[in-house]
Structures are given as C-alpha cells and as structure tokens.
C-alpha cells in the first residue's frame, strides 16, 4: 500500500485471482477510494483489450495443409498379411525339413502307414464309388474341382485385400 492507496501490483493481483493475498482490508479501501477505482478501471480496460483476438487468421485451407503432411499409415513389410502367410509357410517348411533330416522318422512313418492302411480299408468302398461317379460324369468333374479351388483362392485374396483397406482407412 503506497500513500494509503493500492499499488499497481495489488490491483493486478485482484483482477488476476479475484482475491488479494495480503488480506481483506485493502479491497475494502477500493470500495471507498475514487483514485484506486479509476486505476482499477484502467487496468480492466487493458485486460479486456489483451483478451481480444489479435486479428491474425490462418488460411481457410490450413487444416487440409496440415492433414496432407501427416503420413498415411502403412504397415511394415512383416506386418502385412501376405508376408505373414509367406513367413508361416517358410517356417513350417524349415521345421518339416529339420524333422526329416535330423529325426528318425521310420517308426512314425510305419505307424502312419498302418493308420493309412486302416483308413484305406475302411474308405476304399467309398473311394471306389466316387471313382465310379467321376467316370460316369465322363471326366467332367475336373472343371468343378478347378472352379472350387479358384473360388477358394479368390476368397483368401479378397480377405487379405479387405483387411488392408480397413487398416488404411484408419
């Protein structure tokens, strides 16, 4: 308090925080002192002016310019589905090759042959019937088999592409 009046710092503190940390006596003085009220009003005008827009506007296409600079998400090579399938096949082939080379497969192969024989005996009549059917169709079953295989391949490719599109849309 300078000469019984509020200092500029005190007036600004009142406007900044709504309170004066020095205590309630000084704001009471403000209610009765015309000089301090006049200075407070001058600060209030300054505050109002400072809160106004400085008048600088960014271009209307500003948002587009920013978005153009954000790179579109592209999955890394090993994150792509096709790469995952290729990696899975390669890994399986390596594992299989390792098994064939380093593990004695004879007992397992003998067991598998026995199982195959059982199945052959059980399903031979059915296989024979199927063969008869194909013969009856005059060998025309081949296009159906190729068609089914083609449809299945298209389904797999479509699934891979669709998943990529979904990723890109994010």
């Amino acid at each position, binding site marked *: 308090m300078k000469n019984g009046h509020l200092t500029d*710092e005190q007036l600004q503190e009142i406007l900044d925080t709504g309170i004066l940390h020095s205590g309630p006596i000084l704001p009471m003085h403000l209610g009765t002192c015309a000089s301090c009220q006049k200075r407070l009003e001058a*600060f209030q005008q300054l505050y109002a002016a*400072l809160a106004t827009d400085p*008048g*600088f506007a960014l271009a209307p296409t*500003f948002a587009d*310019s920013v978005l153009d600079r954000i790179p579109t*998400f592209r999955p890394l090579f090993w994150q792509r589905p096709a790469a995952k399938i290729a990696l899975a096949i390669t890994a399986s082939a390596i594992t299989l090759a390792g098994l064939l080379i380093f593990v004695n497969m004879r007992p397992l192969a003998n067991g598998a042959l026995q199982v195959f024989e059982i199945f052959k005996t059980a399903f031979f009549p059915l296989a024979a019937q199927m063969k008869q059917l194909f013969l009856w169709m005059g060998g025309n079953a081949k296009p159906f088999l190729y068609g089914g295989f083609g449809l299945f391949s298209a389904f797999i490719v479509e699934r891979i592409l669709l998943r990529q599109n979904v990723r890109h849309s*994010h």
Partner: protein
Amino acid sequence: MNEPVDETGLLVGRVQAGDRQAFRVFIEKYKRLVAAIVFRMVYNAADREELSQEIFLKIFENIKDFQGSAKISSWIGRIASNTCINHLRKKRLPLFADVSAAGQTLENVAGDSLTPECLNEQDDSHRNLQREINRLPAHHRLILTLFHFSEMNYDEIGKALKLPAGTVKSHLFRARQKLRERLLPAAREEA
C-alpha cells in the same frame, strides 16, 4: 476458453486413436488459439503459417501422451510456446530484449504484422495496443497471450515455460505496467 468436458474429451480420444477426420475438427477448434500465440511471437508472416502447421503436427504426434489431467488448451499452449521459442532461438532473435529499448523501430520489426484489411477494421486504440505489445520482449508477449488469450493461470504458464509461478506473475505485472504507461500518458506521470 470454455471446454465442455465430454465433447472435448471425446474429440481428443478420437484424435488419440488416429482418426484424421477428428483431427480436422480439432484443428478448426484450436487454430485460433495457436494463431494468436504464433502471431504474438513471430513477426515474419511467411514463417507464421509454416510454424502453425508444425505446431499441429507436433500435437498429432504427441497427443497420445496427453493424460487429461491438464486442460487441453494449456497443453496446446505449451507446445505452441516451445515451438515458437525454438524458432526464435534458431533465427537468433531476442527472447528477453525489449524491442523499443534495443533502438529498433516498429516498422523494422513488425512491418508486415498487420494486413491493410486488418488496419482498416481496427480502431486506433486497438492498433496502438498491438503496436505496443509488439514492442515488448518476446517472453512478455508470450506470457500475456497465454494468460489473457489461452486463459492459463500462473502455475500452468510456469509449467509450460519451466518458470516458477512467482516469476510468471512478476513478468505479467511488468508487461502490463509497461503497456499501461506507454498507452496512457497519465499513468506514466503517476509512475
């Protein structure tokens, strides 16, 4: 700036998830705030647009780190301030020097700061205020903008600029005092 918690929170959440359309809305919502900070800190009109874009790119890159404990406008204010300060440092422009004290005229420093359209629209007092603000040191201009335009308090500004709240307060008081004395001759006599 009034920030309805739900609406802003949802928007920020969508931007955090990488939604580009949500980020467009976000830019439209906060570009005025960023523009005000950049305008007050950088005088070169060509640099302003570029710098504003850079600020929004940084926001997009770092928004995953925004926890929601602070106001989003304060968080944006912090990124914008730091980007502007780095820009001034890179250009070797003074941060703490009073432009009028350094003997430079306003025309030298802020010749292109206001467009003719702007000047026509603004009245004399507003123009005088802009001119006097431009003469303040950069850190005073920044603190004034963050307090009065971004509505950040002493603590928030202090955290953004890595300054104690007391220092922010004294910078604010000094900046306003200078403006008041320069704009009102009577105040200068009082001082």
